[in-house]
Each structure stands twice: as C-alpha cells, then as structure tokens.
C-alpha cells in the first residue's frame, strides 16, 4: 500500500518541475529564431540551391530566371567532373596547397603567439600591432601589393635579386639578370608565392588565438615544469600543447576550411582565370560556372564536391576533439 500511494506522489512531484522547465525552454529557441531565419535565408537556402543545381544541365542564364526548363541530368555533372583528368590536377593542387598552408600557418602562428606571451608589455604591444596590420589588410589589397613586390621589372624582389653579387647569383641560379624574370611562370614558384601571401594573411589570427589560450594557462604549471628541468621544447609539448589542445583543434579546422577555399589571393596573383595549371577547387568552380559560356550546373557540382571534402575533414577533426575531451 505504502508503495502504491507513494508512486503517484513522486511522479507528480517529478512532473511539475519538468513541465515548468519545458515551458521555460521555449524561450531560448524563440530568441534563436531570428538568427536561424537569417542563417536559413542567407546560408542554407543558397546551399540547397547549389546542391539542386548540380543535378541539372544549366548552360543558359535564362534558366536561372525560370524562363527555360531545367533538364534533369542526375549525376552526369559529377561524372563529367570526376572523369576529367584535369580534376585530378586541381584536387592535387588543392590538397597539397591546403596541407602546406595549414602546417606553415599553424607553426608560424604558434611561434608568434609564444613570443608574444614571453615579451614585455610594450614590446608585446608593438609586435602585436605589427602582426595585426597584416591581418587588417583586406585580402585583395594585400595581394595586389604582393603582386607588385614580385613585379618582373620594378618589383622589390626582382631588385633584391639583382642586387646580389653577380657571381653568387650566377653560381646559385645560373643567371645574374633578374629583370624580366617570370616569377609566376612555373606552377611551383607560383604556389610558393601564393603560400607566402596566404600564410602572411592568416598567421596573425592563429597567433592571437594561441596567445589568448596561453593567457588562460596558469603560469605555475610552466614554472613547475621548468623547475623539474624541462626545456622549452618539452614544456611546450608536455604542458602547453595538451592544455591548449581544444584551441589547436578548432584553429586547425578553421585554417583547413580557409586554405581549402582560397580564392581572392589566387585570382589576383594569377591575373584572373587564365592560368589553368594552377587551378584549385574554388577558382575551378568559379571559372566553370561563370566564364562564358556559363555552366552553372557543372560549377555547382564542383562547389558541392569542395563542400563535401570540407565536411569530411571538419567531421574528422570534430570527432578527434570530442574524443580527446572524453578521454581527458
């Protein structure tokens, strides 16, 4: 009996706060709604459109307007792209470029972050503002300046190489006159310069984020490690890195996404969509979709492939980060 009378009471007692909580719980969703609507209209809807477009043959602007039919082609756009040997070149360029850039950006950014953490207040402010300048420069403006630096007649780099002693230049590179040298001629050289420009643009963010992470690490930990006789290398890998692992995780994900879809810098350095051997996925998608004659369907399918690759990469990292948190 006692048990019988008790049960409804306890369930009722459990129910009331639960019900109240449910009523209260609607508020956050309501508050999120405007944001969700904006994301939906500005991100999800276009994304859905791109996915939809990739299944149609869209070669006429009037189709976008709805004046003409959209012929369904199923996976034909994907088959065409994936079967094109040129796609392999583009994919290889993209993956290698992204890998190199993420690595370099992370290493340089972390080093600068560590440096900023060690510097005195005045010096740190000075270095930080220098670093911020690179970050604050818009991609377009910055890249144009870099292009001038590598100009074949009056560029700073050309001038520097010309200033090398002729004999040294001759023995190192086989020629001493650098005026008129084609800095962007070979794909490897082009990608090296592009890497320089992209890393220059993106390392400040990493540096500042790492610095923010470092500030949250209690300095006793470092001191304790140093007292125990650990060198800087060991302190970083045994203390700093494990503590900042989530920060590094998210920074690597972000860098990967950014470096996979580099467009502005490449477009400016290559002078448009002419230099096909140096194509990467985003400029390839743009060139196919918008260069006359337009092939919106084909361009959309390349964009979808790029998105899928990024989703996979991001998914892997997110799982890694989550797993590490569980382990910890």
């Amino acid at each position, binding site marked *: 009996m006692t048990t019988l009378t008790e049960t409804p009471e306890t369930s009722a007692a459990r129910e009331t706060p639960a019900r109240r909580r449910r009523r209260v719980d609607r508020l956050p969703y309501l508050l999120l709604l405007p944001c969700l609507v904006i994301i939906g209209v500005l991100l999800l809807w276009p994304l859905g459109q791109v996915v939809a477009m990739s299944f149609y043959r869209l070669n*006429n*602007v*009037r189709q*976008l*307007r709805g004046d003409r039919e959209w012929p369904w082609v199923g996976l034909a756009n994907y088959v065409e792209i994936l079967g094109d040997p040129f796609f392999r070149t583009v994919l290889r360029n993209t993956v290698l470029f992204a890998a190199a850039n993420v690595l370099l950006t992370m290493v340089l950014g972390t080093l600068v972050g560590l440096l900023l953490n060690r510097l005195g207040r005045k010096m740190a402010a000075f270095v930080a503002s220098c670093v911020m300048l690179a970050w604050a420069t818009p991609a377009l403006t910055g890249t144009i300046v870099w292009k001038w630096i590598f100009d*074949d*007649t009056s560029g700073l780099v050309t001038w520097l190489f010309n200033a090398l002693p002729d004999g040294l230049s001759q023995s190192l590179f086989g020629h001493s006159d650098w*005026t*008129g*040298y*084609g*800095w*962007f*001629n*070979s794909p490897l050289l082009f990608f090296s310069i592009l890497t320089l420009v992209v890393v220059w643009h993106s390392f400040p963010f990493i540096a500042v984020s790492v610095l923010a992470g470092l500030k949250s690490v209690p300095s006793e930990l470092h001191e304790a490690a140093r007292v125990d006789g650990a060198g800087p290398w060991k302190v970083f890998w045994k203390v700093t890195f494990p503590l900042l692992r989530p920060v590094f995780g998210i920074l690597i994900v972000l860098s990967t996404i950014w470096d996979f879809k580099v467009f502005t810098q490449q477009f400016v350095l290559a*002078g448009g*969509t*002419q*230099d*096909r051997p140096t194509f990467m996925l985003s400029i390839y998608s743009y*060139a*196919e979709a*918008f*260069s*006359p*004659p*337009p092939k919106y369907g084909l361009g959309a399918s390349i964009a979808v492939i790029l998105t899928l690759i990024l989703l996979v990469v991001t998914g892997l990292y997110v799982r890694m980060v989550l797993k590490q948190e569980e382990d910890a």
Partner: protein
Amino acid sequence: MNRWKRLAPVTAVVASAAMVLTGCGGSGDDEAADNSKLTVWMMGEGSEAQTTFLDGVETEFRQKHPDTDVVVQYIPWLEAPKKFQAALAGGEGPDVTELGNTETQGWAAQEALADVTNRMSGWTEGKDILPDLVKNAQLDGKQYGVPWYAGVRGIYYRTDWFAEAGVKPPTTWDELVAAAKAVQAKKPGTYGIALPGNSELPFYSFLWGTGAEIATQQGDTWKSGYTTPEAQRAVKFWTDLVTVHKVAPPAAAGWNEIDARTQFATGKAAMAFGGSWQQGAIKKDNPEIEKVWGTFPIPGPDGKPAPAFAGGSDVAIWQDSKRQDLAWDYLTVLLSKKNDQAFAESLGFFPVYQDLVSGDKYTNDKIMAPFATAMQNTKLTPLTPKWVEVSRTKTVTQAMNSSVMKGQKTVEKATADAAAEMESILNAK
C-alpha cells in the same frame, strides 16, 4: 490626434503594401507603352570623348523622340560579362548595349540579344558596313549585333632607337628578329620586342601569315589547323622570340597586351604589339613618346603584311527590352556614317563603313596609315558561339604558346594538345 498617432504605423504599412501591390501589378502593362526612358550601356569609364559624343547623339535622337530621355551607363570592359549575366538572370537589362565583337555570338547564344536581321536589311546606310564585321555578329544566319567601330593590331616601335641601331621597320619575319636583336644590343637593359605571351590576337596574325587556320568547319565538325606544319612554324617563331632569340624576357609568357604595351610606353621595349586605339593609353603613360614613335603592320613571313583580326565593338538591342523600335532608332542615329566616323576617330579606331576606311584618308597619319593598310586584310576567329570557351575560358591558344615559352612542352606536343582540346570544345554536343 492621439488616435492618429497610434494608427500611423499601421497606415504606413498598409500604404506601402498598397504601393508594392500596385507597383507590381501595374508595371508590366505600363512599361510596354513607357517610352520616356531609353537605357544605353556603354563600355569603358566614360571618357570625355565618349560623353561629349554621346550627348551629341542624344540631342540628335531627341529631335525625333523629344519625350524620351536617354540614360547612358558606363560599364568597365572587364565587368561587362558579369553585368550581362546579372541583367539576364534578373530580367532588368538595358535597351541598347555596346559589346566587344568577340562576345556577340556568345551572348546571342545565351538569348541576351534581339534578332535584328529584318531591321538590318531595311537599313540603307548599313549596307556599306564591312561584310566580315557584319558576319562576325551573326549566329545561325541571324543578325544579333551591328558593328560600330573596329581596329587591328600592329606593331609600335621607337623611331629614335631604330635610327641609332641603323634598322628600318621590318617587312619579313627575319627582319623582325634582326631589328629586335640590333636594337636590344644597342640599348642594353631593354627588350627588342614586348611580346604578350598570354594574348591570342596578336599571335593569330603570325598564324594566318603562314597560311594556317585556327579551325575550319567541315560539315558538322570543326577541325583545328594547329597540327599543320604552317601553324607549327608560326608557334615556333612566336615562342622562339622568347626562348631562342631572347628579344623578349621569360616573364613575357605571362604578359597580356596591356603589360606589353606598358613596357613600350615606359621605355623598356623597342617594339610592342598594340591596336591603333591604344595610342591614348600609351601617351598617358608617357606623353613624350609621341615624338619618337611609329607603327608598322605585323609582317608576314615573306614580305607581305600578315592578316589581322578586326577587333572592336558591336551595338546590340537587348532581347528583354520592351522598347526595341525606339532602341533601333537610337542605334541608327549612333551608327550614322557621320557619327561613326567622328567617334571612331576620337577613340583611335576605324569606322566600320567600307567607303570610309578605304581611300587615302589615312595616308598622312604616321600612326594610323599602317593600321589602315592592315585593315584591308582582316580575318575572323571561328564563327561559333563555342569559340568563346576556347578563347576565354580554356584559353587554349594562350596556354599552348605559354607552355612552349615556359619550356614545359615542345612545339609538336603543345600544338597537338591544343588542337585536341579545341576540337573537343568546338565539337561538344
């Protein structure tokens, strides 16, 4: 008072909704009869020559249509394709537009331009337009644009440096190389010739000079002419200027015509390929150059000037325009022989009328005379809307030449690859 205040937002919403509704509902019918405004898109930045000339055209046009306001919008050349696509996708375009004559077929295939075949055949003055240019604005036998002005590329050279080196303007390929080498030797630190390795149109003069063709149509299939010995000879000559004769630097593989022109204008090169219309830009870079420059037609291999591509502009009526009759009236005023002559001259181009180009009008102009000679022998790139993909998107010819200049491919391999790519694009279903 208080009540009105409270109602004010409601009233505003209702009123604006009503405005939106009537605006949407009425616009379709209204526009058909609305001749109060004619929108004209012109390429470029709206230079003084352009605006003065177009103001004059408007005055002349309004004598016949006093109630129509002509609104001219300037669109930078490089922006034009995006602007056209957006207009076509959104449905709000111009009534009349200028466009590059290499693009007319492509936009006609995109159903952007109105068919003016009938209007054209009923227009007397238009019968004197150079037939090659008229044909260039056709697609499947229909006329989609009207030629406005045209020009050809030639070679600009420094008369003072040539005199110092003791060479004359060349008339054969061998003389061209010899002159470039002689001047380069005399003037260390400069290039014999500023070669736009990443441009196709100057190169076609060399190709056509050997008798080769870009591509020819046999029945339904296009066949590229790049694998012929003549074409390979042209590619070899063009790329040898960089790789063997070294009268242009390796960086030239990436130069377009503007880069090359700047080299000449700034005193870094003895010769440069350029159109007659580039005089203004060169003088802007270096006003002094006027005293020491000259031009000559691009030489063929054996002493005759090579055929040149007739570049320039067409004027077209936008297919979505609801004022096409009015647009055509504007177009015929714009393109009257008198106006055409005046405008073409102010830009450094040639008018498109046969009777205005021939004759000896240009013989005394030291810059224009050689271009006028070249105008007598023009050729066109393949007449198919797919050409623009070969030329602009895949840049087949430019890539072929640069790959040889950069040492990535032999002439045989580069021409074979380019021919295969060109044929696959032109013959795609």
